[in-house]
Each structure stands twice: as structure tokens, then as C-alpha cells.
């Protein structure tokens, strides 16, 4: 166990970043042209970094496994992006966004990083609007805002239910512009399989051309991973089918520490599982909690239709338990409260694993406002509902359509049934203030790193962090490293380190093909997901985690002995891709359980049943666990814990309360 250095600049919190930017070493334009940077991933954190680095003059190579950079899973983010603009004049400020994020993360994030995030948040909105991203506007032509969980101000910018799509297409346009100018070389349908290290520094990657199966060697003076989160370790999650941990995991094997892997965000409002065939879960945006009220029947095992249950027999449990924040409590709190009601026997729907999200009250309220605008006095209920439905349709139409499509029910008439589902992972590769991992020259941005959200991320903060890292942080901080690399010539890829890394990757691929077992990759992935959900999901305990570790170790053995991967390694073979990803998920799953077992406290998304208050709230142990757990992969299936102490100099650490 050893301490690690987060390289946070000295000085006052509010001026650290400004001072850092003004004093960071620069690289002159002619040197930039000969410095090569590899960016893996083309989501918000990857595409924005690749585009910005190319604009600055670096030679950039960008990789994604999808058929186009526009398809990265950032595209699916629905609700919005936070920024401390205070356009609503409701008392927002950089400090308040900083404070909300630290508190929302249950005091397990690094103050300096979070403050920097809050500082650059306003620039993101400016940049995106300049790119032509059509964010929602009010009739006066100015930008509109909505509320999100864990805050009492309106600071969330949005584009209907497609905010991620619009922001990603903005970053994608910027990236394509650089591709068109020849400043970024784009490799689609390529997957990174190894990080290449020379003399202790990251110097390139091995990538597989997914269409031909060919392994390619790529040199870079530095490597940036913007490869997203690892929620698919649970098999069922709101992530895309292809979202995976492989790049981050391979980096971990090369010496990049993996931080806080057990911090998983379970999102409270997702469409419930409908059967064993389910391949993924679909989120219903948190923005719906602006206008929806969450409830269950007051009576156990109530089988009446929602509309037949009178007002007095409904338990609006979030409003009851958390009067100050009500339906807008943070995600971890809302998820646990839903689980608590369902476990206690108050769940609804066929599976009893669901609660209602009801828009009726707000629909009627909107209708009343519309009626008044139209000069209708004392409108009847039907008129209100009709007019209100039009308002709700404009705000959330695409989400309601999606719900109807998936469930076959009409959410304008009956309340939505929702249940928590895995959505985001706060853990990720450990990075210092510069976003550099513990491997020199290897950087990590966006959801793939651990840095800004502590033990729980607030809604609309993922888009903010991805773009902050890619547009406004990494392009500066990477200069500090590259300024010392200007005399390093491009290293030829016949260097033994490349040969060796390629052989490692090839060995694994050939091995999968040769197992010729009896069970599909999905078979093992589903088993892993079930273990993780049951024992390392919304609630965990020491006993369950210990048995999960044993089960995962057995699953790993079975997988490597009995998986069946059809076809060959030198062709387009999606089953082979999946095998590699699941192999890495299995190892990560074990580390998540180890981390959860190590953390003898409850905080944010990590809820250990042994550590809770009498009211069932998370009980932190600040004396012993106010640290980032960064795990070093020892290569023999064991991990060494390194601790980064978290110092709170500007915020008074307290029990989180939303009551």
C-alpha cells in the first residue's frame, strides 16, 4: 500500500486552474506538427479531445469500434447538460455547482477537479451553441433550462430528450472537419486491444481492424482513452451493446490503476425488465422527474389498476421521505427508495419490481396555464388534460413514444412503470489533476476515468464532464507532458515492444477460437451480470461479496474452458469481439467486488447493508474511508490497493441530507 500523487497545483481553489493554465509549458506550432496523439473512443470525451488537439496543431489518430464516430454511446444521453450560467437568476454560481457536485458525490471526489469542472462548464455551452447545436430556447430567443436531481437551481441545458445526440453531433462535426482537413486520421470499426509501453511510457496501441481481423500497430507520443464506462459488466444496463471496459482494462494490466470500481450508478427511472430475452434496458430521462410524481400503493400487493387507486391510497414516498427535494433527490437515493418499497411488497406491475411515475397532476397544471393563456376561464378537467397533454408532448414526446413502443402501454393515459437499472460508472482509470493515469503519457477522459463524480454522479453532469475534459482540460494538460517530448522522434512500429504487444493480443484471440467449447459468449455474460446485480448491485454486504468473488472465479474458469467462438480471427467476427470484452468484464467484476468488500462504509452508489443509519440512509466512515481506492493489477489475478487521501479544504464534510 502506498500513497499516490494527484499533482494538484498549490494555491487557492478558485484560482488554481487559471494559474495552472497560465504557467503550463507550451509547445510551439512547428513542434506540434511532429507530435502524434492517439485518441481511443469518439464519444463526447474522445471526439472533443481529438478535434481540439487537431485544431491546436497536433497530429491525431482517432479510433472507434462503431461504423462511424457519430454512433458513440454519448448519443443516447437524454436529459441535459449542466452549466453554472445562472441564466435563470436563481442564485447559481460556479461555487454552487462545485458544492452540489461534491455533495452529490457523497464527499468522495477531489475538490480541485470538481471546481475546475464547474469553472469550465459555462464555456461548454458557449462552444456548443457556436457549433450550431440546437439547444432548447424560450420565446425570447434565449436558452432554456430545466431542473435535475440533487440541485435546487435550474442549470440544465437541453435539446428535447436528445441532448446527448445533439452535443455529440456537434463534437462529431468538429471532428469530421479536422478529418476533412487531413489533421485527424480516423479509424472506424477498430478496437484497441493493447497499450504499448516503451521505457515506462505509453507509446502507442495495438488495434484490431474489426472487418479484416488484422492487428495494427500505431505509434503515438501520448495516448488518450475516452472509452466510456463499464456498466455492461452487469449484462443488463442502459449502455449500448458494444460499450465495454477492454481499453481501460488492458491499460490497467499495463500499470494504470483502476479507481473506485465499485461506484456504480443505478438510475431510478428505467423501463422494467420484461423477460429473459432482454438484451438491454432503456432509460426514461431524469428530466421526467421534473413533471412526474413517483408513487406506489399504500396497500401491499395491491393489484388494482393505477387509475382505480384513489389519491388517498397512494404513497408518494419520495415526497414523504425527502420533503425538501421530493421527486428530485439524487439518483442513488431515489433508486434505493424504489428498491425499499418493492422489497417491502409495494411494487406494481406483473413482476412487482416497478413503481409508478405519474404525470397526471402536472399535465393538469400545464393545461390550466394553457387554458388561461387561451382565455378559457374555469376550464373543466378534460380541457385541462387535453391542453396539458400537448405541453407534455412537446417537452417529452420522444420519451413517451419510446415508452409506448417498448411496453405497449400509453403513458399519456396510465402512469409509467419504472425501476432502477445500471446506468453509469463513477469508477474508472485513476488520473491525476492532468487527467494522466499512473502510466506516463497515458491519459483518460470522460466516463472512463474516475475523477469528478465521487460515489454518485448528479444528472446532466456526464455530458458536462465529457466535454469539459475533451474541449477544455486535456488539450491544456497534455501540453505539460508533450512539451518534454519534442525531441522524441516517431518510434518505428517494428520496435520489440510493439511486436510483443501484438503477440499478446494475437495469443488471446487465437486462444478464444481454439477453445471450441459448448456455450456462447452471451451465456457467460448473462451469468456474470446476474452475480453482479444480485451481489454487487444496489445493495451489497460482506457475505454476498465474498461469495460473488468465488462465483466469478469459477465463472472465469468455465468461460476459458467452454466458450464457443465460431469462425476465425482473420475475418469480421462479432462473436470474437464479444468474447474479448466479456473476458475483461469477468476480471473487472471480481475487482469491483474486491473494492466493494474493502470499503466498509456506504457512500453514494455504494450501499453496504451493514452501514446505514436508522432511517436507512447511507452511512459514511470519513475517518477511515475518505480516500480514493486505486487498484494496481499485479498480473497474477491479485491487486494492490493504493490510497489517495481526499482532503476537503473548502467544503465542510457532512452527512448528506435531502430532507
Amino acid at each position, binding site marked *: 500500500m502506498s500513497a499516490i500523487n494527484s499533482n494538484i497545483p498549490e494555491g487557492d481553489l478558485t484560482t488554481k486552474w487559471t494559474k495552472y493554465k497560465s504557467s503550463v509549458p507550451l509547445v510551439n506550432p512547428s513542434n506540434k506538427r511532429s507530435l502524434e496523439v492517439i485518441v481511443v473512443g469518439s464519444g463526447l470525451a474522445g471526439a472533443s479531445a481529438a478535434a481540439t488537439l487537431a485544431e491546436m496543431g497536433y497530429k491525431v489518430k482517432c479510433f472507434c469500434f462503431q461504423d462511424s464516430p457519430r454512433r458513440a454511446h454519448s448519443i*443516447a444521453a437524454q436529459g441535459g447538460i449542466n452549466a453554472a450560467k445562472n441564466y435563470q437568476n436563481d442564485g447559481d454560481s460556479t461555487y454552487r455547482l462545485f458544492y452540489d457536485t461534491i455533495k452529490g458525490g457523497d464527499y468522495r471526489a477531489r475538490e480541485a477537479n470538481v471546481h475546475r469542472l464547474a469553472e469550465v462548464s459555462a464555456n461548454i455551452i458557449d462552444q456548443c451553441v457556436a457549433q450550431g447545436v440546437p439547444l432548447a*430556447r424560450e420565446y425570447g430567443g434565449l436558452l432554456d433550462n430545466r431542473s435535475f436531481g440533487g440541485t435546487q437551481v435550474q442549470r440544465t441545458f437541453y435539446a428535447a430528450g436528445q441532448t446527448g445526440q445533439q452535443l455529440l453531433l456537434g463534437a462529431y462535426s468538429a471532428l469530421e472537419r479536422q478529418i476533412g482537413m487531413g489533421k485527424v486520421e480516423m479509424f472506424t470499426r477498430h478496437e484497441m486491444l493493447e497499450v504499448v509501453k516503451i521505457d515506462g511510457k505509453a507509446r502507442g496501441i495495438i488495434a484490431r481492424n474489426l472487418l479484416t481481423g488484422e492487428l495494427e500497430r500505431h505509434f503515438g507520443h501520448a495516448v488518450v482513452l475516452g472509452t466510456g464506462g463499464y456498466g455492461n459488466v452487469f449484462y443488463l444496463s442502459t449502455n449500448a451493446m458494444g460499450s465495454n471496459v477492454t481499453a481501460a482494462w488492458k491499460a490497467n494490466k499495463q500499470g494504470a490503476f483502476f479507481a473506485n470500481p465499485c461506484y456504480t450508478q443505478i438510475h431510478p427511472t428505467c423501463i422494467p425488465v420484461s423477460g429473459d430475452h432482454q438484451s438491454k434496458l432503456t432509460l426514461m430521462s431524469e428530466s421526467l422527474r421534473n413533471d412526474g410524481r413517483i408513487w406506489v400503493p399504500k396497500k401491499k400487493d395491491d393489484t388494482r389498476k393505477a387509475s382505480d387507486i384513489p389519491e388517498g391510497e397512494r404513497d408518494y414516498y419520495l415526497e414523504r421521505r425527502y420533503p425538501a427535494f421530493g421527486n428530485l433527490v439524487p439518483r442513488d437515493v431515489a433508486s434505493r427508495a424504489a428498491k425499499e418499497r418493492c422489497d417491502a411488497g409495494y411494487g406494481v406491475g406483473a413482476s412487482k419490481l416497478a413503481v409508478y411515475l405519474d404525470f397526471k397532476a402536472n399535465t393538469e397544471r400545464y393545461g390550466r396555464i394553457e387554458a388561461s393563456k387561451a382565455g378559457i376561464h374555469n376550464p373543466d378537467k378534460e380541457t385541462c388534460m387535453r391542453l396539458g397533454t400537448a405541453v407534455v408532448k412537446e417537452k417529452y414526446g420522444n420519451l413517451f413514444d419510446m415508452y409506448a413502443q417498448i411496453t405497449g402501454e400509453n403513458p399519456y393515459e396510465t402512469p409509467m412503470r419504472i425501476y432502477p437499472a445500471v446506468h453509469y460508472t463513477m469508477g474508472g482509470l485513476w488520473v491525476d489533476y492532468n487527467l494522466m493515469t499512473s502510466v506516463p503519457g497515458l491519459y483518460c477522459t470522460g466516463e472512463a476515468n474516475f475523477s469528478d463524480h465521487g460515489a454518485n454522479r448528479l444528472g446532466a453532469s456526464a455530458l458536462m464532464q465529457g466535454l469539459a475534459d475533451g474541449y477544455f482540460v486535456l488539450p491544456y494538460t497534455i501540453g505539460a507532458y508533450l512539451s518534454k517530448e519534442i525531441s522524441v522522434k516517431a518510434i518505428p512500429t517494428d520496435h520489440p515492444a510493439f511486436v510483443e504487444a501484438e503477440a499478446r493480443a494475437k495469443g488471446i484471440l487465437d486462444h478464444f477460437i481454439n477453445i471450441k467449447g459448448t456455450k456462447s459468449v452471451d451465456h457467460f455474460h448473462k451469468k456474470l451480470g446476474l452475480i453482479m446485480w444480485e451481489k454487487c448491485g444496489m445493495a451489497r454486504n460482506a457475505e454476498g461479496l465474498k461469495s460473488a468473488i468465488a462465483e466469478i472465479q469459477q465463472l472465469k474458469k468455465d468461460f476459458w474452458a467452454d466458450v464457443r467462438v465460431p469462425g476465425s480471427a482473420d475475418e469480421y467476427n462479432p462473436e470474437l469481439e464479444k468474447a474479448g470484452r466479456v473476458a475483461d468484464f469477468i476480471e473487472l467484476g471480481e475487482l469491483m467486488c474486491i473494492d466493494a468488500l474493502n470499503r466498509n462504509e456506504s457512500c453514494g452508489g455504494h450501499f453496504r447493508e451493514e452501514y446505514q443509519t436508522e432511517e436507512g440512509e447511507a452511512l459514511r466512515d470519513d475517518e477511515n474511508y475518505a480516500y480514493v481506492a486505486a487498484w494496481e493489477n499485479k498480473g497474477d489475478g491479485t491487486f494492490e490497493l493504493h490510497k489517495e487521501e481526499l482532503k476537503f479544504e473548502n467544503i465542510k464534510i457532512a452527512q448528506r441530507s435531502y430532507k
Partner: protein
Amino acid sequence: MSTGNMNLTLKVWRQKNSKDSGKMVDYKVSEISPDMSFLEMFDVLNEDLITKGDDPIVFDHDCREGICGMCSMFINGRPHGPKDAVTTCQLHMRSFKDGDTIVVEPWRAKAFPVIKDLTVDRSAFDRVIAAGGFISVNTGNAQDANALPIPKAQADAAFEAAACIGCGACVATCKNASAMLFVSAKISQLALLPQGQPERYKRVQNMVAQMDAEGFGNCTNTGACEAECPKGISLENIARMNRDFVTAKFVSEEEG
């Protein structure tokens, strides 16, 4: 948590690689639940094929929530299948009946060559965007976002055009394999916004030139693209693009 009771016959396009001539192959699937998505039905079929030692069917998919634009099946003669305004991943088996025969093919267009089975190469779309589908603003140059008010109606219209997911259904359904709906959606989004004005006419010329170079066909106004677009992108965009394209000839001459 029940499995279903639908039994279906699938006729699926199988093609080993871009050089293979390809053929339709019949498959039976059983115990399909109406709550499954179309792609989950394919998962069941593939699981079965893998267990039997056959090659699973390759198809593009990723987010499975209708937004990434990756899924691309031509089902019973329609891109994304029989339901309006949904992608294949959001098409559910309750849209079919027990005993149905379903024909599944890849997108077919010269500019979208088949890679394997139901997977096609849509990189032509990226190259069209790289030719001009952007506003040339480097990071760090932006003014305060609210310094430029934009009338709501105009912003909403730009948003509607920007809703395109780049799936290529418009090309697949068009008898000319024209990409005009896709290209015009991006051109419209930027042409409707004040930020897009400085490059407006250069943009339309460059993007149309690239579209032609990629081998997409021309538009003969049949409107199939609009009818099949899962995001409801309007034909108006094509009209707007054509107007800008014609105007560009004069504007650029004036600008010399």
C-alpha cells in the same frame, strides 16, 4: 418473465463478404415473445445457430434505443420494418403475428456496399459531413451563448432537421438510392441558424459535390425517404437545400 409462443419463418440475406454473391436463407424461430424487440429475436436465432455450430448472422446494432442509427435491416421490403417512425431496434415482435414469414435484407445502395450478411458500409455519410457539415469554429473562440438570441421557431426548425440519426433508411428505400434527405437535413440545420450563415453557400456546394462523388443517386421527389425516416425528417429540407444550391451559384460568383 415468460417466453412467448410465436413461431416465425425468417428469410435472411446471407453474404460471407463483399465479394461473395450472397443468397437468401430460411430459418425457423419459435417461442418468441411479443415483448421482444426485433433484434432480440435475432439474438435468439443467433444463440441457436452458435449452439448448433453454424455461423451467426452478422448485423449492425449498438444502442438499442433508437438513437445511434447503427441498426439497419430492410424488413419485408421496408427499412426498419412495418412500423412508422421507429428504428429496427425499437420494433417489437408484437408488430408481427404468429406464423408470419419475415424477409430480412441489408440496406441496398451502390454507395453502401454490403460488408457481411446484413451489415453495410455507410462511411460515405461521414465523408459527406467532412466535406462541409460543420461550422468552422475552433474550441475556445465562442462568445457567451446568450449573446446571440435565436427565435424559438427557428431554433426548433433547426432542431427538427438535426434529429437525423444517419441510419441511411432514406437511401435504402429510395429507388434512386439518393442521399438527399440526409444531406439536406444537415444543410438545413446549419442554414436555419445564424451561426451557419458565413459558410452557408460554400457548405451546400461542397456537401453536394461529395454526395455525388460517393455515387448516391438523384432525387425524383417520390417522398419515400420522408415516409420511411424513423425520425420524421421532412422533405422540406430537400427543397431548402435545392434553393441554397441554386443561390450558391450566384453568391459564389459574386464573391469571386
